[in-house]
């Protein structure tokens, strides 16, 4: 089931983003628009800058030059803007990054209580409904270390959703998982995509990408080499680099 994406409203606007780590230039001028409700899959070989790109969107990496605008708010040195953007952008990491000293429930309720000033009962109600949504309400009182990798990643998704973000960033969310746990996480992501969430996913899960992606961005050496629909990518890639990459992972 594919939903219609209105190409009207821009969620994330990136103009000429560059980023260097010492001598290594990770991003060499990335320009891309992400539209509201769109699911964008970012592909590319390792070291091509795809993770760095999505990490600049919520300011986890500071870009050196270029402009990023999220829901009309410029990501600049204004501290207030950065806070607002982080409140609107949820992120899921490869290594889950759950807080090991807090229970699953507390992992989810912490930010809504501290940042959004929700009451304890409101935030717990919200957390339980999100745990239902990702399919593990019975794990609420456990600690992260007591859960499997797939369950941890689903908690991490619930934790990000608890801030009621408008955009979700996924940084290789299934790369650290055992093969039999990948599906349970992808199912949650597919459900999320179908619900109309704006998503930017760095992933190598081509089945998932084929099912929900509206658009692909192919990165190589810090640049977007090719972009297009899944149909375009799977059936008619133009660039040699893209063809080579796809031939190796499909």
């Amino acid at each position, binding site marked *: 089931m594919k939903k219609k994406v209105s190409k009207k409203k821009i969620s994330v606007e990136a103009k000429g983003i560059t980023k260097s780590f010492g001598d290594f230039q990770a991003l060499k001028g990335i320009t891309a628009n992400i539209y509201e409700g769109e699911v964008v899959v970012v592909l590319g070989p390792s070291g091509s800058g795809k993770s760095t790109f999505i990490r600049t969107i*919520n*300011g*986890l990496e500071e870009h050196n030059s270029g402009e990023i605008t999220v829901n009309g708010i410029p990501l600049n040195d204004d501290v207030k803007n950065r*806070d607002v953007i*982080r*409140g609107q*952008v*949820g*992120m899921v*990491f490869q*290594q889950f*990054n*759950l*807080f*090991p*000293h*807090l*229970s699953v429930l*507390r992992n989810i309720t*912490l*930010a809504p*209580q*501290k*940042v959004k*000033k*929700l*009451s*304890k*009962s409101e935030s717990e109600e919200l957390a339980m409904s999100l745990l239902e949504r990702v399919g593990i309400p019975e794990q609420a009182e456990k*600690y992260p270390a007591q859960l499997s990798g797939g369950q941890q990643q689903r908690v*991490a998704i619930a*934790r*990000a959703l608890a*801030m009621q973000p408008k955009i979700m960033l996924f940084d290789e969310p299934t790369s650290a998982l055992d093969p039999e746990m990948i599906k349970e996480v992808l199912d949650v992501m597919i459900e999320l995509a179908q619900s109309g969430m704006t998503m930017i996913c760095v992933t190598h899960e081509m089945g998932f990408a084929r099912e929900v992606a509206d658009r692909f961005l192919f990165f190589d050496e810090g640049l977007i080499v090719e972009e297009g629909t899944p149909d375009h990518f799977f059936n008619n890639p133009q660039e040699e680099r893209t063809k080579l990459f796809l031939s190796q992972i499909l």
Partner: protein
Amino acid sequence: MTLYVVTMPSSLFTQFKSEDSIKKKLSLLIRNRNFRRFFIQFVFGIFLLLLFFYVVDKALNLELGFGHLSSRAGFGLSHTFIIDYNSNDSRWMGYFAGVINTIRVSLVGIVLATILGIFMGLARLSPNFLINKISTGYVEFIRNTPLLVQIIFWQLLLLQLPHISKALTFGGLSVWSNRGIYLPIISSNENGSLWSLILLLGLIISLILRSRLFKYKEEHVDLFSPNLISFFTFVVIAIISFFALSMKLSFNVPEVNINQHGTYIQSGGFALTPQFAAILFALVLYTGTFITEIVRGSIQSLPIGQTEAAMALGLNTYQRITLIILPQALRSIIPPLTNQYLNLTKNSSLSVAIAYPDLFMVSRTIMNNAGHALPMFVLILITYLTLSLIISLIMNIINRRVTRIGA
């Protein structure tokens, strides 16, 4: 690991056949690993037992009594705290005054070194260039010079303050001279101790109120700041009891006067003597560097993903540190921190170099006057051991609390 207790395994003898020669039996015995384990422990046990009897026998011939500690001390102490001691008291009293001086400098030192260490540890991780470099400079400079030298240096520095006749007074508020630093304190009339008791009670009440209010605020988020409410509660209690007891407070400002013989008399205020200040500054600064490194190391050993996840959720710097970083870092901070507390307490015996009358300094005075060095040293060692064990005990309790999952 299995612990082989010294018991002769009965299975040893079952392998022997009666027709074997003695030689065969012996070689079988020596090759048997159970026999070897038993034999080695048996021989070593006998040796330890003999050593123990020898030491006890020799020790019984030594004079190990503490009778001389009950006689009149005959020496005064420059610093006494809590207990009132003078030279007519027994040597025991002098010794206890020394113990209290040790506890005083150690306790204040531990608190200040911890605060300094946590701030400097966070500062070392700060992206702010100036803060970061100040912290690095502090650690590298203080950690790499000997503590004894630092103690004497601080005393020398404090003795460079002007003579009492030219004391710095900072507009009459305090007196800084080579006799020490005298700071103003608030003193009161005879109801003072009752009022301080009420203040303490008020403080406890407002702290309980504060935690209750924070609990309440979890549900009723619109509640006005619990910190301010409880603070005002405390202030109201203080003011009402102040007038109810018709308290009179006065500002006790240190003064310098000259008596009829032309001597300078120092009076009033809270005294920080050069000796106490020197040993305290040195212990705090020196131990603080190690605590700084412990705090920095523990925080750096946490995965960077913890900070990133907290940032991505929109938690601010203060919330990240107090809710995510410190609770996790504390688990690896507490055990080495305990070592530093023990070091600080034991290092306080270096007071002897600048004549701050801690327990070691007082014991040396007693030994100089009365001899009996060996029993005195046994007493000193037992006292330090007791202090150390108390610190370890308290820190173990704290450690158990923070390592409890979800604490």
